[in-house]
């Protein structure tokens, strides 16, 4: 199983599943991070503590721990 955290910089993936519930899931969805959405990894902060991704035209910052909950596949 590959997660968003495993992705390298500039890699493009499609989201398969969000392995989370409740508030965080709603939060992700409201940012457009949902099943079938295509995501590009833009930047990693030092030690991958936070990552910046692009969904559609929006840039979103995520914590590494949260990126780990997002299951992805290569396009």
């Amino acid at each position, binding site marked *: 199983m590959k997660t968003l955290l495993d992705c390298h910089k500039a890699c493009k993936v499609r989201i398969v599943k969000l392995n989370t*519930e409740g508030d965080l899931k709603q*939060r992700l969805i*409201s*940012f457009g991070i949902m099943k079938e959405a295509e995501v590009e990894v833009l930047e990693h902060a030092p030690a991958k*503590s*936070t990552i910046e991704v692009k969904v*559609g035209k929006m840039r*979103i*910052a995520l*914590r590494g721990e949260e990126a780990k909950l997002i299951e992805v596949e290569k396009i």
Partner: protein
Amino acid sequence: MSTVDAKACPIIANHIKVALVGQPNVGKSMLINSVSNAHLHVGNFSGVTVDKTEVLFDYKEYHFTVVDLPGTYAFTDYTIEERVTHEYLCAEDYDIIINVVDSTNLEKNLQLTSELLTMSKKVVIALNMSDEAEKEGIQIDAEYMAELIGVPCVKVSAVTKEGIEELIEAVILKYETPKNKPKLVFSESVEEEIAQIVWYLEKHKFSSTNSYRNVAINLLKGNKKTYAKLHDEPIWVELQPILIEASKHIELHHDSDDIKESFAEEYAAFNRGITAEVLKQKKIEEKKTLTEKIDSILIHPIFGIPIFLFFMWSLFQLTFKIGNIPMDYIDMFFTWFGNTVGATIANEDIRSLIVDGVIAGVGAVVLFVPNIIILFIGIALLEGTGYMSRVAFLLDGFFHKFGLHGQSFIPLVTGFGCSIPAYMSARILKNDRDRLLTLFIISFMSCGARLPVYVLFTGAFFASNMAGNILFAIYVSGALLGLLAAKVLKLTAFRGKDEPFVMEMPKYRLPTFKLIWHTVLTKTMMYLKKAGTFIAGASMLIWFLSNYPHNLELKKSYETKIEKAQGVAAKAALEHQLSEAQLEQSYLGTIGKFSEPLFAPLGFDWKMSVALQAGLAAKEVVVSTLGVLYALGNDVDQDSNSLVVAISKNISFPSAVAFIVVIMIYLPCFAASIVFTREAGHIKYFFYLFAFTSIVAYVMAFIAYNVTLLLA
């Protein structure tokens, strides 16, 4: 609230009340600012401390009231702001919704639009930033879009003010025409389930202000309020199994076990469809956008943080260097003003109260307006350009180690300006524990009001070319201490799950002058209001405590001595002795003497102890109190050389270091304490904060005093 609105717009017949909604960073505030002849009302949403901006204006024979609702990505209740918007849209009374949409990011923005369309309300869509979209080669067919989704769509630009009039016209037209059915259609499987629930509601003639379709969608989406309403109805018994069945079907269809996720997918599909129909992008450029280019430098894994630190350092240098220029003039003005007013008052006691108490006290506060304005401009620029979220991105890893959230950075930095807006901006943290933790350490970020004390002491003990660096060091060590305190609190009082970190990194924008001016003005006014109320009051109290009780015998004995004395210098020396002796036997002196043993381990004399206690009211009072206590009269500021000299003569270097440490850590001021209590939600937190900061301040000052004593 409705009574207030009625007063503002007495003619109800032609009164249109508009709810302005949009996702964050779509230029909503700018759009509302670009309406000409508009009056801005800033207040609070009832019950919560979220800013509510209302704009009133007249157009033709209509009176408009536009309520600017906080930005929200979708109908979620994640933050207080989102909750306010959601509740307002569902429960409040308004005529029409203007949905502001960022034309350069249509599909994402339609997420909120499509949810608005499912409510049975009149909606007009403002396609904002249309000029920017055109530059990016994006073409939106507004007429076709209006036809597809069944609501008017108007291209506008808040920057060039294009289309504003057309938008108002469209609102009026929509207001005057009856509601039409929205054209938002879900997938077949969902529509089937909706139809079934609608059919059931129709059969039982269920009474509702909303359309049956709307009720059905709300039920399927699991809207708590709709559930609560239907739960007490007799039809619930039969409706419930139908709903369970319907949810199962939809979930099955979407291969998901979460109905909300399924609906989000439904909306996303609709938005994709609309965007594909109405939007044409000339050429898909793979070239990096400007924002991406800037980001590749500013959030660079290695250079990002040094660049940020450089920006902050420059901001403090500017605050110190430029802010000091107008200070002399302000000081001169207040001296002149005090003398002029004093000349008109015959009674000596009242004159002293007004001139030495009120005018001098308030003057000491106004003195820092230039510094504070520069700091606020800096912070407004950080926020307005979008750099603030980059900093949160860069620092989250670091902050997280101390149990804080990347977004805690925003209230913490604001804390360098003034603790009051800082406490208020902590609302962006949703998790209560994270917010409380941030609130507790905001006071470690030295606010602008502590600057005068620092300036006074650095001036007394360091060369002037070192002052800026020492000042920076004081601020940095305060911040580091705050982080350590956060870690300790996180491991003890605030243990628990962390708040997730998911935030938008908006496009870089140059904020308009008007917007910066507006924020800086409101914040500065807030500071000045504090000067006029709390600080004037505290100055009067300190004046009273330091002047009473009068000891006439003491005065007489000195007066005879002064008469006998030879030469001006000797007379002046005796006068100083008199005022010092008078102070010592005043109420303030008694308090200081009483608390002296408590502060003795820190190397403070009774004068410093009094100044610190007076500083609980406001930090600005510390300097004026020191001035009074070192027998120089009340009208002193940190620039008066005489006070600097008096301080360097009377206070030892280790005591001064300990004094700065206490100032750095203990409670900011009375007004901030009130705001803190309100934001934290309970008075008990204030007592925790008071105990926490006092103990830390005492312990740290004790260590600082003894270490400096050893080194010196």
